[in-house]
C-alpha cells in the first residue's frame, strides 16, 4: 500500500511515484521548485535480499546519471528478515550493499534524506534510514534496535524492571524520542500541520557539508549520548600524537 497521506503532505506539487516489486516504491517528485528522486519501502516489510537489492539498484542508477538530484527515502520496514535461507545467501552483504549505495550517493553529491513513517529495526534500520545524511521521523514512525520484550529475554531481566529502567535513560528504549536523543533522528514532523512540504524544501536548500557525520555531537547536545562524541574526538587527537611518539622512539 502506498503511503498516500505522507506523499501528498511532502509533494503537493506533483509526483510520479508508483509501487514496485517486493514492497518498494519509486519515482520522481517536485519539492521547492526542484526535481527529486523518491525511493521507499512499504507495508512494514522485513528487509530481505530481494528488497535490498532492488533499492540499491535504483540508487546506483541515480548516482550513475550524475545529475546530483536529491534522493528522498520513505521508510516503513521492520527488522531484517529472519530466515536461515536469507542468512545462508549472505543477508549481511545485501544490507551492507544498500547502506554503501546510499552513502556513496551522498559522497557523489546527492542530498540524501530519509523520512521514517513506520517501523525500522536493527540491521534494516542501519541499512536504510541511518545510511542517509538526514533522518526525519513523521507520524507512525517507530524506530528501534530491538523491542523491550526481546531485550528482556537477552539481558535476562523481567520486562517490568526493564520498562522501569527505560524511564531513567534514553540509551536503550525503543521509539522516536529516545533515538532522537542519541542523535539518530534529526527532526520530528507532524503531517497534519501542513508544513511538511515547506520543511522538506528547506532541508533540500541546506546543502552545507552534509557528509560530515555529526550525529554523535547531536546526541551529546540532546543528552542521549553523553560520551560518544568526546571519546571519538580524544581518539582523533591521540592518533596524531601516537604517530609522533613512533618517530621520537
Amino acid at each position: 500500500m502506498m503511503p498516500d497521506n505522507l506523499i501528498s503532505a511532502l509533494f503537493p506539487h506533483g509526483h510520479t511515484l508508483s509501487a514496485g516489486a517486493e514492497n518498494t516504491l519509486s519515482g520522481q517528485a517536485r519539492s521547492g521548485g526542484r526535481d527529486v528522486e523518491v525511493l521507499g519501502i512499504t507495508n512494514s516489510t522485513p528487509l530481505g535480499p530481494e528488497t535490498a537489492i532492488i533499492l540499491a539498484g535504483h540508487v546506483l542508477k541515480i548516482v550513475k546519471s550524475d545529475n546530483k538530484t536529491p534522493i528522498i527515502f520513505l521508510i516503513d520496514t521492520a527488522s531484517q528478515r529472519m530466515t536461515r535461507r536469507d542468512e545462508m545467501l549472505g543477508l549481511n552483504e545485501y544490507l551492507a550493499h544498500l547502506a554503501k549505495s546510499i552513502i556513496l550517493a551522498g559522497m557523489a553529491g546527492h542530498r540524501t534524506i530519509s523520512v521514517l513513517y513506520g517501523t525500522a529495526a536493527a540491521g534494516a534500520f542501519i541499512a536504510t534510514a541511518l545510511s542517509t545524511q538526514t533522518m526525519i521521523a513523521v507520524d507512525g514512525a517507530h524506530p528501534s534496535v530491538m523491542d523491550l520484550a526481546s531485550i528482556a529475554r537477552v539481558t535476562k531481566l523481567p520486562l517490568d524492571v526493564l520498562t522501569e529502567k527505560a524511564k531513567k535513560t534514553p540509551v536503550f528504549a525503543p521509539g522516536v524520542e529516545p533515538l532522537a536523543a542519541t542523535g539518530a533522528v534529526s527532526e520530528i514532523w507532524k503531517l497534519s500541520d501542513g508544513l511538511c512540504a515547506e520543511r522538506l524544501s528547506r532541508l533540500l536548500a541546506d546543502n552545507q557539508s552534509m557528509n560530515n557525520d555529526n550525529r554523535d555531537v547531536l546526541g551529546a547536545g540532546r543528552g542521549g549520548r553523553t560520551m560518544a562524541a568526546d571519546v571519538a574526538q580524544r581518539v582523533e587527537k591521540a592518533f596524531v600524537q601516537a604517530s609522533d611518539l613512533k618517530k621520537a622512539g
Partner: protein
Amino acid sequence: MIPENVMNQPSWYESSARARIEGLLDAGSFKEILGPQDHVMSPHLALFDLPPAFDDGMIIGRGLIDGRPVAIAAQEGQFMGGTFAEVSGAKLVGLLRAVARNAGTPQEVSTVFLLLDTGGVRLQEANAGEMAVSETIHAILDVRHAGVPVVALIGGRAGAFGGGGLVTACCSHIIISEQGRISVSGPEVIETNKGVEEFDSRDRALVWRVTGGRSRVLLGGADSYVKGDIGSFRKAAEVINNNAPPLSLETLEREQGRLEHRLKAYGNCHDTPEIWVIAGLSTPAGIADLTEDDFIDLLVKEGVRHDAR
C-alpha cells in the same frame, strides 16, 4: 596426533583480542590509544549491575606490519560479547575518522585492520550501540574513499553478528578462518523468533554450513581463507595492499551484479551443499570434511574470487 609445529601455533579463536594484536603486528610496535590506564568505561552498565571494563572491550591503536604503519582495532569477544556500545563504538569511530582525516599526511597509515569479534549491538545500550554501528559504517566508507583499505579479520569466538555482519561487508577485504562466522541474525535469534524448524541453533554442523568461514569464502562473503592460527592471519595481512577495491560507483555496480546473480542462481536453495552442486564444486557434500590443505587447494583450483565489495 597434532604435529608439533601446529600445536605450538597460538589459535586466533582461543586468543584474547590483545594477543591477536600482538601476533599480527611487528613485535613491540603497538601503540594503544585510550588504553585501560585511561579508564574510559561504559557509563551504562551500572544500571544493569554489570561490571564495566577499563577498555570497554575495544582495543585500538597504531602499529607496524612489515615496517608499514597501520591502524588496528580489536574487539574482545569475551567482554559483553565484543558488542558495539557507546564507548567501544566511539573508540572505533574516532580511530577511523582519524585515519580518513590524516590520509596523505605524514601521520597517514597504509591500511586499517579490524579484528571483529562481536555479537552485534550491546542491548543494555542498544540505541548508542546502533548509532555506533551506523557511524562505524559511515567512517569505514570515508576511509576507503580517502584511498586507505579497511580489512576485516574474522575468526573469533563471537563471530561477526548483527551490525558486525554489516560492518564486515563494508570493508575492502575480508580474511576469515574455518571457525569464523558472519551473519546478521544469529541462529539462536532466528530459532527464538521463527522456531526450531526454521533454524536449529544446536545443530552445530548446520550453523557452520550456513554462517561459517568455508561457506562464506566460497559464496563471496569473504575474500581470503586462512588456517586458524595467528601466524596465518598475519601472513594474509602482510600481502594486503592497495589492490583492494576502492569505494566507487564501479565497484558497487559490480557488487550489484554479483549479488543479483547469487540471488538468481541460488535463491531456491535450502542448504549450502545444494549451492555447491549448482556451482559445480567437485565435492559438494563434503566441503566441511576436507582437511584445511585440501580446502585451500580447492579454492585455488576453483579460482574463487569475489573482489567487488
